[in-house]
């Protein structure tokens, strides 16, 4: 499960550190103590920045780094699509073999396909993604209340 890509992101995380944001959330995985503090910064519906601090295993750390890579600069709708695809992959119990279409959407994140075979680790991989979803709901929910329901 430890793809080279994952180890790279773990050892050299992208975008790590807390910077200015519109909303901040703190998520914990109580079963293993993995933690993340994550901030999102929006310009309209465009993701200007995702910054984060945390501690945890290589999977949760690398996943946050990949998230930063993938989502920063995207429009929120596009980002939600990516998040949905990543969730689908992680919940596939190893049954999805990422194809070209999926690789186009997920880029480096397809390296996590192998993690989905390990139920105990799926939560690690999803920690930052769940935090991002939450933070986005807060950030956009406040300025555009109509969207709140869908969050």
């Amino acid at each position: 499960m430890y793809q080279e890509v994952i180890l790279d992101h773990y050892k050299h995380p992208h975008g790590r550190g807390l910077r200015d944001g519109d909303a901040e959330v703190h998520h914990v995985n109580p079963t293993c103590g993995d933690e993340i503090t994550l901030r999102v910064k929006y310009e309209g519906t465009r993701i200007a920045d995702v910054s984060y601090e945390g501690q945890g295993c290589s999977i949760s750390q690398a996943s946050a780094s990949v998230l930063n890579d993938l989502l920063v600069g995207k429009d929120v709708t596009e980002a939600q699509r990516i998040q949905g695809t990543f969730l689908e992959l992680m919940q596939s119990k190893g049954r999805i073999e990422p194809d070209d279409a999926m690789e186009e959407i997920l880029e480096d994140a397809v390296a996590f396909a192998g993690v989905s075979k390990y139920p105990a680790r799926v939560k690690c991989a999803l920690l930052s993604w769940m935090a991002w979803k939450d933070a986005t709901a807060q950030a956009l929910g406040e300025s555009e209340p109509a969207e709140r329901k869908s969050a």
Partner: protein
Amino acid sequence: MTQLPGLLDTEAIRKDFPALDRVLHDGKKLVYLDNAATSQKPRQVLDALTEYYERHNANVHRGVHVLAEEATALYEGARDKVAEFINAPSRDEVIFTKNASESLNLVANMLGWADEPYKVDHETEIVITEMEHHSNIVPWQLLSQRTGAKLKWFGLTDDGRLDLSNIDEVITEKTKIVSFVLVSNILGTHNPVEAIVRRAQEVGALVLIDASQAAPHMPLDVQALQADFVAFTGHKMCGPTGIGVLWGRQELLEDLPPFLGGGEMIETVSMSSSTYAPAPHKFEAGTPPIAQAVGLGAAVDYLQSIGMEKVQAHEHAITSYAVKRLLEVPDLKIIGPVTAEDRGAAISFTLGDIHPHDVGQVLDEQGIAVRVGHHCARPVCLRYGIPATTRASFYLYSTPAEVDALVEGLEHVRNFFG
């Protein structure tokens, strides 16, 4: 050999149950008619247990090694199987306990510690029936003593049915919970669920159904029952001892407080306070009965490979035949419904003045295993003014020839004490 419509191929089925080959008392083949106490186990279940312990044994959840992942997948897979077996809307509504008694006590305790609107206290009432198993009486007596709630119950008619004539006085606006048995383990009576559930819903009371004698014998659909909780036990349905089930509606399991505290049921613990995992784990403290859940999963697979409709039809045929044959025995009196309609495959009876202990013992000498006593339902014996009964109870492997053996055995008992 007697041919009855609806019988299963018992010759094939019996090959799956090693215990049925047991030979007793110099050469008498076991005639096992004590299925309401516990069923025998098919080879498939024993193999699942052995395979679990020999290859996959580990503690479940949170483990990152192969064995822990396999054990978790097997344990949680058993939950999926049970959920499907009872048509639960969600697998997370299936809680594994140690037996039906724990399942019933679990509900009583949840309600004792619950907040409004569920809370049972001195201003509220609990409703059960006079035909409950002790495991569905004593928990409510304890709850009533400890909270001051009033315990009420439905009585029985002379022919072994629930007397619901005063249902509106028994179940009232004060009622918080109605708990009753779906099929009685002593009378065999199959109770009318709908009337009770309708009245309970009218007054906003929760409904708990004790399906210990139903789950092994007929299709069980918790959604069709419209109850809030359903309890049953593994060892009566081809599964191992040491495992029971409580099904409960998700929103209730979310709202109600936990019972046993410990590992597995928590979300996060500090010395001063803890938060709890979502159901079902919230109600499963400590290392669960892992192998036993796996065994129960195999039992469910086994029963479904035969088909619960077919099991029910088989038992109905056997029960009809047994009722008819037993009524031919002089001085024999069936305690409970004397027809096979709306009844399960447990038949209690008295035999003249001969004490059930003597009936059971002399039958045992012929290799016939029945149960004698009050069958953990002493109020039923009190109601009918008898000290005890003899009970023959059938299952999917029971044959008409075994009914014949029982009847012959009873003739022998009569001669012996005549």
